[in-house]
């Protein structure tokens, strides 16, 4: 069908499949984003109960992780199926630093981010030689490695020191939260601020040199090479950034829950995160936000409605299939289409009235 193959061509060129650049810009205006964000951060904890507050905290955290995946897929066309593993790695490092070194939360968070960034770099090295399915598979295998290793070594379970193990009796330590954000509402605001900073970091990259380099690399690496762009550097930079974001998200998750389990970062969750990133939309900042909500707020809704956990799987799978089939540019793309269409109609209506 003609519209569909057109979509894939333009998607390969790094633009949103449908929707004009104007639509994207209208969504991306910084002012248009920060004001609602501030309102959400300030007022949401007052409006919802503990359950939903935690759901939205987790949504924000996974939105940050999804931003990394969206960066790689939307900007560079590279698939990384290891993001949840990197998130788990960041959480693991953060927990161990927190228990072992007793540093303040912010430093520990940075430590987790840097560790995950470095590992992300390593995971991204194969990207220099391959793309598409093979890259996806190799990152998936890396995620599988992580799943087995962390399942065996486990997260710290509240003991002191770097290993953080409690052998028998003893007070349990949870990960210490930041000094300024001990309570759940305060921690939610903290998370929103950090996530927003992460998104701004990505936006900054997009609008400066790395963003231009990525766009050119996506169009044609030969072109980029001949234009003097250091392809190796920018590709690994992208993976490092994605890993860094995942690590920060992991650290925030560790702070939110306080104690994590090694079996909750399986390779299949990385596939799910990628799938939902595609569903949410990988071409604008709104996509990862929607992904975060889909990953955590939507299941919470099903829990609140008392839907059996296994039925929730069915709902999730069906929604995933439907979204992938009907929305090549993701839900964010559909929304931007809608906005563009309505705007155009509004403009046309005004022009007709003027005449």
């Amino acid at each position: 069908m003609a519209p569909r193959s057109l979509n894939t061509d333009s998607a390969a060129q790094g633009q949103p499949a449908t929707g004009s650049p104007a639509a994207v810009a209208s969504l991306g205006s910084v002012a248009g984003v920060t004001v609602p964000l501030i309102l959400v951060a300030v007022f949401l904890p007052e409006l919802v109960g503990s359950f939903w507050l935690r759901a939205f905290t987790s949504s924000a955290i996974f939105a940050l992780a999804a931003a990394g995946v969206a960066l790689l897929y939307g900007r560079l066309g590279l698939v990384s199926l290891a993001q949840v593993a990197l998130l788990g790695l960041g959480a693991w490092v953060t927990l161990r630093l927190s228990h072992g070194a007793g540093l303040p939360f912010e430093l520990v968070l940075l430590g987790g981010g840097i560790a995950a960034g470095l590992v992300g770099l390593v995971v991204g090295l194969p990207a220099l030689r391959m793309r598409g399915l093979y890259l996806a598979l190799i990152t998936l295998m890396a995620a599988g490695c992580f799943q087995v290793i962390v399942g065996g070594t486990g997260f710290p379970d509240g003991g002191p020191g770097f290993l953080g193990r409690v052998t028998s009796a003893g007070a349990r330590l949870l990960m210490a939260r930041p000094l300024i954000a001990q309570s759940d509402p305060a921690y939610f605001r903290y998370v929103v601020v950090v996530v927003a900073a992460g998104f701004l970091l990505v936006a900054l990259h997009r609008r400066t040199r790395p963003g231009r380099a990525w766009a050119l690399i996506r169009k044609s690496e030969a072109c980029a090479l001949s234009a003097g762009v250091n392809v190796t550097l920018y590709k690994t930079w992208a993976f490092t950034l994605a890993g860094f974001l995942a690590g920060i998200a992991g650290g925030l998750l560790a702070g939110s829950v306080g104690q994590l389990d090694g079996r909750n970062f399986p390779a299949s969750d990385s596939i799910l995160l990628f799938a939902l990133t595609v569903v949410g939309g990988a071409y604008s900042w709104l996509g990862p936000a929607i992904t975060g909500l889909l990953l955590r707020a939507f299941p919470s809704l099903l829990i609140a409605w008392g839907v059996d956990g296994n039925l929730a799987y069915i709902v999730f799978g069906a929604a995933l299939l439907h979204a992938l089939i009907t929305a090549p540019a993701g839900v964010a793309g559909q929304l931007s289409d809608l906005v563009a269409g309505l705007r155009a109609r509004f403009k046309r209506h005004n022009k007709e009235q003027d005449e």
Partner: protein
Amino acid sequence: MKKLSNHPMTRRQYSASTEVGLRKCLSWFVFIAMLSTLVIFVTACTSSSSTPADTAAEAPTEASESEAVQPTEATVSEVATEAPAEASADEAAAPTEEAAAAEPTEEAMAEKPTEEAAMSDALCGLGNGQEATGEPINVGAVVGATGPDDFSSAAKGAAAYFNCVNANGGINGRPINYIVEDDGWNPEQAAQVAAKLVNDDQVVAMVGNTSFVECAANAQLYEDENVIVISGVGVPRECFYSANIAPTNQGPRLSNLGMIQYAYETYGAKKITCMAPNVPGMAEWLCAGLAAWGADKGVTVETVFFDPATMDPTSLVLQAISSEPDAITVSTPAGVAIPIFKAAEEQDLREAYHWMGPTSLYDLDFPAAVGSYWDGHLDAQIEFVNTDSEGSDNQAWLKILDEYGTPDDPRDSFSQAGFLAAKIFVATVLELDPASLDRETVSEALRGVSNFKSDLVCGPWYFGADADLHNANHAGRIVQQVDGGWQTVTDCFEVEDPDLKPILDMEAAGGLVD
């Protein structure tokens, strides 16, 4: 010149893109509407045949229409031996009604309806047959239902008991609103649903918690918010070493230890292999306990930690026997243990080594699943009384499950644990003034529980607020697989874990048990 924006082509393009956008939005609306209808329909269907108080909806399996309805209510003593856990394959003959207690819900129970109903009345709550209509008391539970295993049977046992209580006067007129949440084996979700129960639903206590992850994730929350948890089944170490959590079961460490004590005394085992799934916080703690006990007696304990999702049980078995032990204890849930025993059967190892396990193997489907090869060669230690015991509390459990539970509820030791926890809670709370029942008073009362006797457990149960360790249940029995079922082989005997010393001293000092 016509303005470009008025040109028919551009106008059509604009409308085309809007049309496409609108059509896609419409497809989403239609999809969501269909899905919601389906979900609501399914949830309504499944919850109408399960107890309303249980929000973790169970689905009655209509697996096979041709399978005859198991008359689980026919004779109570047959219930346990005849694999009542196949209740999952039963048809939901009739949905349970929480209305009048005198109404039997299954036809097979019609033999002596009033007499049986009257008996069960006396066995729960005030026993007065009046439905409680006061202001509900919120009680919560966090169970790991969706995931590698389904641990919700403790909550189901507790739910049946609470239903019975609500039909019999409630807590001095106030019904119990039992809210069960699933944590999906994920600490993130466990923390989230616990926050809901504690902060949003304002539960006065948690009863029947059973989860691999929630004790660790939520212990601090319970301490901070002064919520007491009478767990159904605690598994990892945190469930026993947290200030506000006290399980009714023994835990895998004590259960395994009891098992190898028997092996040492009866089979003369001097070398034991401890096979455990590589779950940090459980495997090491568990096998270390065995090693600590063995150090005194000259018994060496080898460990085999493995990934529970392994595809290769034969290698595990080969590794376990490589150190030439006398006995091998398989400390895993039943589902993980079955392939291991199958692999051991393939290698024909039942004579060469003694095979055993903790209470997790005591599942009524287990003998059928591992087959008659293991008859007389498989032992397990059980934390509660055997499910077909004639003791009054045990019989009450079975009856109340029949009347106030659903046919799908497993009749296993987890269910016994949850039932006992609910019983303890109700007995304690009935002593309090119903008008001033809140979290403070309930927590204080639960902390003071002592000398609670029941034929479900070997010794009296107590909370033990002054100790770091909450492990009042520390004596058990041994059962052996015989003729496709389980046969009790010993009476209660104490488990001799060196780590129990502080609380044994506490017990000896008086006041907690008599």
